[in-house]
């Protein structure tokens, strides 16, 4: 009896890598820490315990960095930028909070130091650039970012966001450099997926509770986790650790393809873990009630099914074949009122003050800036400068970054920057397509479909520099190239 219990416990522990279990414990223990010093202590403990498990300092710092970065906690040196001009006069009391350094940045600096030391000790061999990766446009984008920041009307804001952009690129390069061996790739992705599962579980719990459940991690930087739908004010849209449910749903759709694929393929990850992630993640995606993310998520799952599951002749488990329709039917009945409500309110999106018009005007304003300032406004300066040039009725009293990836880049870096960015995206799409249709590594397929989800959803939301979704896409991209 005792043996049986021990064996089943041990087999349960084998679902995840030891480092991933440490991260699970870290999340559970730290999600209610609201102050910085205990959080710093928890973070140091996380890295130290991982180090004791794998004896690799660089890998431990890398895994610790990923975990801390995703949780977005422990920011310090808070610097409020009061938006200029008529921002507050309009009653829009939403000063942009700029955070200069976070604990995750401290780990990034440590990691860079260790890697530079290692590079000069071991030579260039371990850190070769994947020949297919278009790194030159990225160097030019940063150079253009420097120029646009120098000429920006709000240089402090632009320099800060250029630093964030450089960090994102660096995260991609570091992922390419470090996550070459299967073991570290698995550990890194498990940490990312545990974060996704935590986010999804929190969304479900918040929906059941009808609001935030009272954790420090929900409140500290969001004020209120989740929001109420614009067109249906009684519909609560849970956001997990974010205020914006759209951000949560966008993050979830980046993980869904991998979760879906590995639910039915017995390689890389534990199928039960992946299936749990997929079921909870899909439910959370629906509960966030983000229409664009729903559509894109469904499309990604269909593509995953067509390109990977079907192509690889994966057999569905017996129970799924037998009870799949019943489960699906119950899910539809359970969610029908909310889905119908969101579909019916879709007509309001096309009203004069609806979301579609709002997004079109963002494009119009970004095009104006590209025409009048060919070298760009500077990074994330757009939302301040539209106040100078348009009446608040035009941008519907909501001065936010352009709700489109290309409009964001174009307004920030000018036409040159936009063309470079398009060139970069084009190269990634070409490479990603070849991986999808002819590659054999299904891990890469899942990751590249996640990146495709980001690209599609960013056509509706301002996710270019938003933490942590922008970091996640660079991590997935980096791991995909490292594993190619």
């Amino acid at each position: 009896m005792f043996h049986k219990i021990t064996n089943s416990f041990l087999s349960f522990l084998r679902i995840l890598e030891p480092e991933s279990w440490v991260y699970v414990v870290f999340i559970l223990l730290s999600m209610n820490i609201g102050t910085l010093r205990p959080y710093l202590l928890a973070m140091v403990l996380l890295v130290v315990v991982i180090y004791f498990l794998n004896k690799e300092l660089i890998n431990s710092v890398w895994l610790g960095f990923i975990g801390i970065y995703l949780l977005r906690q422990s920011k310090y040196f808070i610097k409020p930028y009061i938006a200029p001009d008529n921002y507050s006069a309009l009653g829009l009391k939403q000063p942009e909070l700029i955070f200069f350094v976070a604990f995750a940045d401290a780990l990034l600096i440590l990691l860079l130091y260790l890697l530079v030391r290692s590079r000069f000790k071991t030579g260039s061999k371990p850190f070769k650039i994947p020949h297919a990766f278009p790194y030159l446009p990225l160097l030019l984008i940063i150079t253009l970012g420097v120029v646009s920041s120098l000429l920006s009307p709000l240089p402090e804001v632009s320099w800060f966001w250029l630093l964030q952009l450089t960090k994102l690129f660096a995260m991609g390069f570091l992922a390419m450099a470090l996550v070459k061996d299967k073991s570290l790739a698995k550990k890194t992705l498990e940490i990312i997926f545990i974060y996704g599962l935590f986010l999804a579980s929190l969304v479900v719990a918040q929906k059941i509770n009808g609001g935030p459940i009272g954790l420090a991690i929900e409140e500290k930087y969001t004020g209120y986790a989740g929001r109420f739908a614009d067109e249906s004010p009684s519909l609560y849209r849970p956001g997990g650790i974010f205020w914006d449910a759209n951000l949560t749903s966008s993050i979830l759709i980046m993980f869904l393809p991998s979760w879906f694929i590995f639910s039915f393929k017995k390689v890389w990850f534990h199928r039960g873990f992946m299936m749990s992630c997929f079921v909870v993640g899909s439910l959370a995606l629906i509960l966030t009630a983000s229409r664009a993310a729903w559509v894109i998520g469904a499309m990604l799952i269909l593509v995953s099914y067509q390109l990977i599951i079907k192509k690889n002749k994966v057999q569905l488990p017996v129970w799924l074949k037998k009870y799949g329709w019943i489960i699906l039917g119950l899910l539809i009945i359970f969610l029908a009122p909310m889905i119908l409500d969101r579909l019916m309110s879709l007509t309001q999106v096309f009203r004069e003050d609806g979301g579609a018009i709002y997004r079109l005007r963002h494009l119009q304003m970004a095009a104006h800036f590209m025409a009048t300032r060919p070298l760009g406004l500077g990074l994330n300066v757009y939302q301040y400068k539209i106040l100078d040039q348009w009446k608040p009725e035009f941008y519907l009293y909501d001065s936010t970054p352009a709700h489109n990836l290309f409009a964001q880049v174009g307004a920030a870096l000018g036409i040159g920057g936009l063309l470079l960015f398009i060139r970069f995206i084009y190269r990634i799409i070409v490479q990603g397509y070849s991986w999808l249709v002819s590659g054999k590594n299904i891990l890469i397929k899942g990751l590249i479909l996640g990146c495709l989800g980001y690209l599609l959803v960013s056509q509706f939301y301002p996710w270019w520099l938003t933490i942590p979704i922008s970091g996640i896409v660079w991590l997935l991209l980096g791991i995909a190239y490292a594993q190619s």
Partner: protein
Amino acid sequence: MLNLKNLKKSLLKKITLIDLVLILFGILIVGFLLFYFRRQRVFIYIDLTFQRQDWNVNSFPPEYWEVNKLRVGDVGYNSVGKKVVEIQEIEKNVWDGGRRLYVEMVVKLDAVYNTTTRTYVYDGNPLLVGEELNLKFNDTSFTGIVVNVYKNPEQRFADYRRANAEIKVHYRDYDPWHAEAIKNFVVTNSKGEIILKTKEVKITPAEKVVVNDRGDVLLRWDPIKKDITATFELPDVLCVDKLCYYNHYQTFMIGEAFWADSGQTYVRDGSVMSSTINYTE
């Protein structure tokens, strides 16, 4: 001829991903240093008045406890402990019997000059007249509106002409003791300089217009209340275009109500009967 493909290949062999990260941060740091050293650090003076609660309606001044916390010499520090703001002058004017205070202050700021936009910037906020600005002095936070930006204290009133003025104001229906107090009415600013002084006061029984039972409109005199005709000297007023301002905010055109507080008594309402302005510069 330089073969770009070969150059790229040989570069790819030599450069690693770590080098790329260093190059990225290198470009950023070089650009930032260029920006940082192009900026000029300057001490700038600004005049700051209280924040309007509503942008299109005259709002109330702040309550006394907030304004009285602010003193000349109060300083504020940035996040690395450097002194970046200091109150040089502060003018407080009584409103609503002293429960609220009009406030205007001169603040010295450690700012930077943005050579691109040609504006002064403090703590990331452009210093523009009409903008809101939040400053922290010791334990007090004050959000006000920038009224004036200048580099030297001498430039503070560069847009204005100084003058002295004499105004005659008629006040109706005052209590006798209030009317007597106006005889010695003197208002000083925070430096102790006289900005208003009574020159002459004529106190008469308050005029009353009454209507009798036949419908005749008659002039009569109140047995208790007094009317006052006071002549005030305003030794230092600021004029711009056709308008002159007493105490930085109040005009005194004929027919206009004129009010002032000395801290011990006040005059309120009334009507300006005449005003004489002598420009001193």
